[in-house]
């Protein structure tokens, strides 16, 4: 068949396929030029930063570059006994150079991440090194502090030799590589991230569930009420959507605080005693309430757009065929809304899992999420590589959920409106 099509020529004798390609090339270029700005924008603001974040999260070049001679001389050292003299000499030379460049502070911070106790002995070394004599650096350094004579600390330095590391990812899961290179859990009382991951998943799950339970009837009303009422209801749904996130979160703070409107109301109606006002903010409750309210429109709108397309005659048909209202709803209406449910749940869950401002403001200690921890490392500890690692873990989590969802429901079944 292809040989037949090859034979087709235009009146000018050019093969039709060539002629068609030529004619369409212009359109293709035009189409590409139209999307080019967006493509460029995405490249600069999305692809590049994500790539940079990925690099940063595994990048461990800083120490590698600060101690080049040391790591070179350590290559031959097996790490079982104290390193030989040449390692000490190389370390002394590297360190002196850093002191001259006033970069030794950074080194001590970095090494301290690997093993506690480096800060003080490096400080001491800097003071003492001024008076070092040439030769036999091993003896001189070991004399500075007893930790310098401990092989553990030298192994800790050696661990920083590779330019790339997975330690940040391990840390994000409350794990680390121990001296033997095995991946182990950190002590139980220092595990903070796993709790946060689990809490993030839990809150995102329940917020999604709450949103679904509340949005379904609203969306149904919106889709079935006569125009003049449904328009009003639509405005009620959209008005908060259009209001600033901060304003909404702040109003929840006014409502939920212990001396707030809701508590005052409870006291007034005698539901709770004045001296026993429940704490509804700076904990999980606050996060649940505020996040559910804020994310509700993201559930209502996809549901509404799907329900709008379901003909009311289907419900009538179900009933006329003998289905009770419940059976008709369950067998006819509900299955037809699944694309909307899928879209709404996925949207709300993904938004909730990375939610930041609201938990930061109303969450307190027990209501903060992993994103707050990421922000903390971005702004306070300045451990950007750790923040990047956790950010990527979050992204990977979302992609994994998307993948599972696609396997279970099928992404083609989604309808966002």
């Amino acid at each position, binding site marked *: 068949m292809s040989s037949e099509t090859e034979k087709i020529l235009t009146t000018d004798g050019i093969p039709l396929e060539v002629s068609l390609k030529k004619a369409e090339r212009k359109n293709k270029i035009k189409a590409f030029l139209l999307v080019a700005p967006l493509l460029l924008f995405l490249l600069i603001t999305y692809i590049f930063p994500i790539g940079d974040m990925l690099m940063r999260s595994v990048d461990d070049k800083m120490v590698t570059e600060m101690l080049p001679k040391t790591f070179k001389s350590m290559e031959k050292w097996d790490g079982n006994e104290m390193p030989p003299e040449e390692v000490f000499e190389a370390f002394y030379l590297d360190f002196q150079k850093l002191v001259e460049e006033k970069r030794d502070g950074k080194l001590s911070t970095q090494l301290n991440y690997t093993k506690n106790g480096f800060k003080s002995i490096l400080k001491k070394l800097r003071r003492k090194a001024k008076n070092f004599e040439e030769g036999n650096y091993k003896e001189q350094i070991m004399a500075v502090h007893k930790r310098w004579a401990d092989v553990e600390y030298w192994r800790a330095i050696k661990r920083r030799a590779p330019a790339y590391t997975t330690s940040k990812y391990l840390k994000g899961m409350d794990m680390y590589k121990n001296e033997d290179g095995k991946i182990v859990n950190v002590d139980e009382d220092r595990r903070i991230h796993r709790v946060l991951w689990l809490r993030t998943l839990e809150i995102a799950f329940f917020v999604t569930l709450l949103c679904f339970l509340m949005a379904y009837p609203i969306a149904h009303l919106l889709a079935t009420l006569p125009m003049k009422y449904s328009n009003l209801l639509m405005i009620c749904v959209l008005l908060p959507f259009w209001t600033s996130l901060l304003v909404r979160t702040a109003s929840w703070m006014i409502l939920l605080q212990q001396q707030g409107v809701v508590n005052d109301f409870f006291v007034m109606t005698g539901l709770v005693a004045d001296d026993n006002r429940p704490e509804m903010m700076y904990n999980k409750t606050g996060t649940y309430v505020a996040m559910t309210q804020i994310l509700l429109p993201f559930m209502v709108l996809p549901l509404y757009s799907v329900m709008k397309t379901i*003909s009311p*005659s*289907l419900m*009538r*048909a*179900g*009933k*006329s*065929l*003998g*289905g*009770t*209202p419940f*059976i*008709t709803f369950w*067998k*006819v209406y509900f*299955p*037809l809304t699944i694309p909307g449910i899928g879209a709404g749940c996925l949207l709300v869950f993904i938004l909730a899992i990375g939610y930041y401002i609201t938990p930061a403001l109303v969450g307190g200690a027990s209501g903060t999420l992993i994103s707050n921890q990421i922000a903390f490392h971005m702004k306070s500890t300045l451990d950007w590589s750790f923040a990047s690692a956790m950010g990527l873990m979050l992204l990977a989590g979302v992609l994994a959920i998307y993948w599972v969802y696609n396997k279970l429901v099928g992404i083609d079944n989604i309808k966002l409106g």
Partner: protein
Amino acid sequence: MSKNQEFVKFDKVDKSYDGKVLVVKDLNLDIAEGEFITMLGPSGSGKTTCLMMLAGFETPTNGEIFLDKNPISNIPPHKRGIGMVFQNYALFPHMTVYENLAFPLKVRKINKDEIDKKVDKALSMVSLSGFENRMPGQLSGGQQQRVAVARALVFDPQVVLMDEPLGALDKNLRESMQYEIKHIHESIGVTVVYVTHDQSEALTMSNRIAVFNDGKVQQLSSPDKLYEEPVNSFVAEFIGENNTFAGEVTNFQKDQCKVKLSDGSEIIANPISVNSNGDRTTVSLRPERALINTKNKMDNNFKGKIEEVIYHGDHTRVRIELLGNKEFILKVPNSSANMDIKMGNEINVSWNSYDARALDPK
């Protein structure tokens, strides 16, 4: 076999949606068992509302509907056992054809073997055997409609309601479906209440037709009577084509009257809803009942001028000016005798006074 003549009975039914306007006014209608009755009328005439009240999706504001002598106003739709075919088919898009047909049987807790048998039978009835596993979206409009009909019949309902079921189909398909539905009705003898605004559909399919206008049944009779003997000018106008003359009754007799038209001429007509001299009336005459240049003796003979000739193949439609009516339509059969029909020619037009029905004024 004596059939229940009042199988479905609308008894003084009123319906209003807003408490100000009556959509259905004092409706009394008896439907016999096994009958194919059509509710015909323009949109907004109340016919669909009647159907919805019978199905149970609307409640009468006043009056009662009886099904086999039992009042049903307080019975919810799913307990009425009335099958319904909707205008847009209303097939469940997420179910296969089989599942669609099995739905009414499953909710009745019928066992699997019985369901299979009934679904099979219903599908073969609409000649769609072998389509069990198709989704409705994979079927053509006509096939979907047949599935909808099969689904409405599969659970052996006492009454089947059809709400303009053929409205979305093209002309040829619609015609063949009309016969198909009629044959199904004849073979299983179920009572069918059919709603349409298409008069030819109503005329071909029904045992009786109820013409609705303005919330009221204007005439309830068999298709031929409806066409030949309309009782008022709305029915005459709505069913088929119709030439009208407005005028005043001058010489009233029991079976004949004279009607004086606005241009002064008088025609002889058949008095239907006029009672005395001086009554205003609209005289209605079917186009095919007026003949041109005929040798037959008829009691109305007038001269008209041809204004327009429209060729229709088997017949020619001729618009003439006659007795001041510029919209007088004639249907002239295509024959060699009628070759002199040209624009501007004068022709003789005649009709029997019996066919000119003096009805109520418009």
